[in-house]
């Protein structure tokens, strides 16, 4: 696997990007941009989770279901008095445990069957949230979820929450990058590339896929919990099928290989619905069209364009050097 992002990214570029992201609250024209950036951070975690699952050769159309589970777990525990800095981790763990159990059963299935059952699972999660109204508040959801506080410093407003979300997103990004470079990451990529061949070299691909699904869904649970504490609210409508679709769109549009793809996808698609907010139906039509057009014309995602551009430059350089050599 020689995908662009498995190579170390240029450190200078990464440092500048992180620095700019960290300084955003100071130069953003208004609070709305800070909000958008916070949503982007949460989206990035969700899309990275999806990318890890895709890395092992599976897609999940039930990703929103795990975010929903995480959001409810964290909201309920923190409303019972648990510290809201701790509950997102428990939420992530809960989502991971469910994913491990479900994945162990359904990951025996080939691609599309798996997607169907994961999709059905997310529908069940929404139904349960609606149905168990004594616990979950039914369709009204849970209002007044406690904010996250770090050593007494309460992250109540947007400029306070954003740095925390950014740190969480960057940590997830770094861990994903490290995972891809680890032996497990290599096994995941090999499984996606050719499951039968990987199996024949003694790797339990079923286990690799279950682990990837567990990690990816756990991240979704954690991100869903963060979002719930940020918005201070969760309802069955918070994560529906269409949310799962939008994470998938970000992944496909950005690119499925490496960590650069999810970043690009989130950067391109998080602001889009906000820019088109005035046109309710059109916004989704454009989303759908972007998805279809990307699959048709840039099937490896926008991040792959960078790679193509780079290799073209390399070819140009090499041929220029060759020409220079021949001409005395």
């Amino acid at each position, binding site marked *: 696997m020689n995908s662009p992002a498995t190579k170390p990214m240029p450190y200078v570029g990464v440092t500048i990007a992180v620095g700019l992201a960290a300084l955003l609250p100071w130069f953003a024209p208004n609070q709305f941009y800070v909000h958008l950036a916070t949503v982007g951070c949460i989206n990035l975690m969700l899309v990275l989770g999806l990318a890890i699952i895709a890395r092992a050769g599976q897609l999940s159309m039930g990703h929103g279901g795990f975010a929903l589970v995480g959001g409810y777990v964290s909201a309920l525990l923190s409303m019972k008095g648990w510290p809201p800095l701790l509950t997102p981790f428990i939420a992530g763990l809960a989502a991971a445990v469910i994913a491990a159990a479900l994945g162990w059963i359904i990951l*025996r299935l*080939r691609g*599309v069957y798996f997607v169907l059952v994961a999709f059905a699972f997310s529908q069940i999660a929404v139904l349960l949230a609606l149905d168990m109204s004594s616990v979950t508040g039914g369709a009204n959801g849970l209002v007044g979820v406690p904010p996250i506080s770090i050593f007494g410093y309460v992250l109540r407003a947007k400029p306070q929450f954003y740095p925390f979300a950014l740190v969480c997103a960057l940590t997830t990004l770094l861990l994903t990058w490290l995972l891809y470079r680890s032996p497990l990451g290599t096994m995941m990529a090999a499984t996606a590339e050719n499951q039968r061949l990987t199996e024949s070299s003694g790797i339990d691909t079923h286990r690799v896929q279950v682990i990837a699904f567990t990690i990816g869904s756990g991240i979704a649970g954690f991100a869903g919990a963060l979002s719930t504490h940020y918005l201070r609210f969760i309802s069955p409508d918070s994560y529906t099928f269409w949310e799962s679709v939008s994470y*998938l769109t970000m992944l496909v549009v950005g690119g499925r290989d490496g960590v650069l793809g999810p970043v690009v996808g989130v950067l391109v698609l998080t602001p889009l619905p906000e820019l088109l907010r005035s046109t309710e139906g059109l916004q989704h039509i454009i989303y759908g069209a972007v998805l*279809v057009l990307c699959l048709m014309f840039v099937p490896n995602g926008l991040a792959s364009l960078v790679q193509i551009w780079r290799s073209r430059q390399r070819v140009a350089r090499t041929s220029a050097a060759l020409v220079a050599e021949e001409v005395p």
Partner: protein
Amino acid sequence: MEIILVQTIVNGLMVGMIYVLMAIGFTMVFGIMRIVNFAHGEFYMAGAFLFAILYGSNNLPFFISVLLAVGATALLGLLMERIVFRKFRGNELNGMIASVGVALILQNSALLLWGSSARTVPPVISGVLSVGGIVFPWSRLVVIIGAIVAVVSLNLLIGHTRIGRAMRAVAQDAEIAQVQGIRVDIIFPVAFVLGVSLAAFAGVLMAPVLSVSPFIGLAPTLKAFVIVVIGGLGSVPGAVAGGLLIGLIESFAGTFVSASLSEILQFLVVIAVVLLRPQGLLGRKEREA
């Protein structure tokens, strides 16, 4: 008690037959093009909407409304096959994601065109049929009869015509079928348009029973998925058996317990089938590639 029981069965059969129509089209498109069509329910929605406009709002004659609604949706399907689905046939994962994009486009186009308010359609035949003290509302019987007619004609088409034989051959192995002189490039759009037409017809049949809105497509898509996983992806008899099973589960659980329990029960049935018979109840095992 007996009356409730019979009523529950009639309801179950009605819903089940609609699911059968949805699942057959879905499973056919998968069997032949290897595309999981997440936009399948959107064609159902389009059929229902066009019928609601033609028959409900403009009072066109029933049969003309049915023909126009199904025909227009079939054309839409042909267009989508040409522009999008053709490019992804055989590519299971990307084809599925692309179909999600198509679903988004179709659903929200309907929203832009017709608004989000739900429409109701008058029943085609009002009144009831009473047999031995048990009453069957005609509106529901029309659905069951219409769906049976569609399934039987499709079966005749697949089983006894040249194009049907060609479709079966392509479903088994597109490459070998092509070598045998079958015009595969014609079979793909034919299968897709047939599948879409069945979905549109299901929408037409259901329009008078439920209220029509741009958002009614997702639920039957999910049902089609569940059914083909139970029955076996690509298997038409599996779709019939699975559809009736899910319809009856839904009707019985809805009458005697609760609607959301029925959804959870269906999910458990899926998990059980997946554990015990991954290829589905009537599906064949995937050949080793």
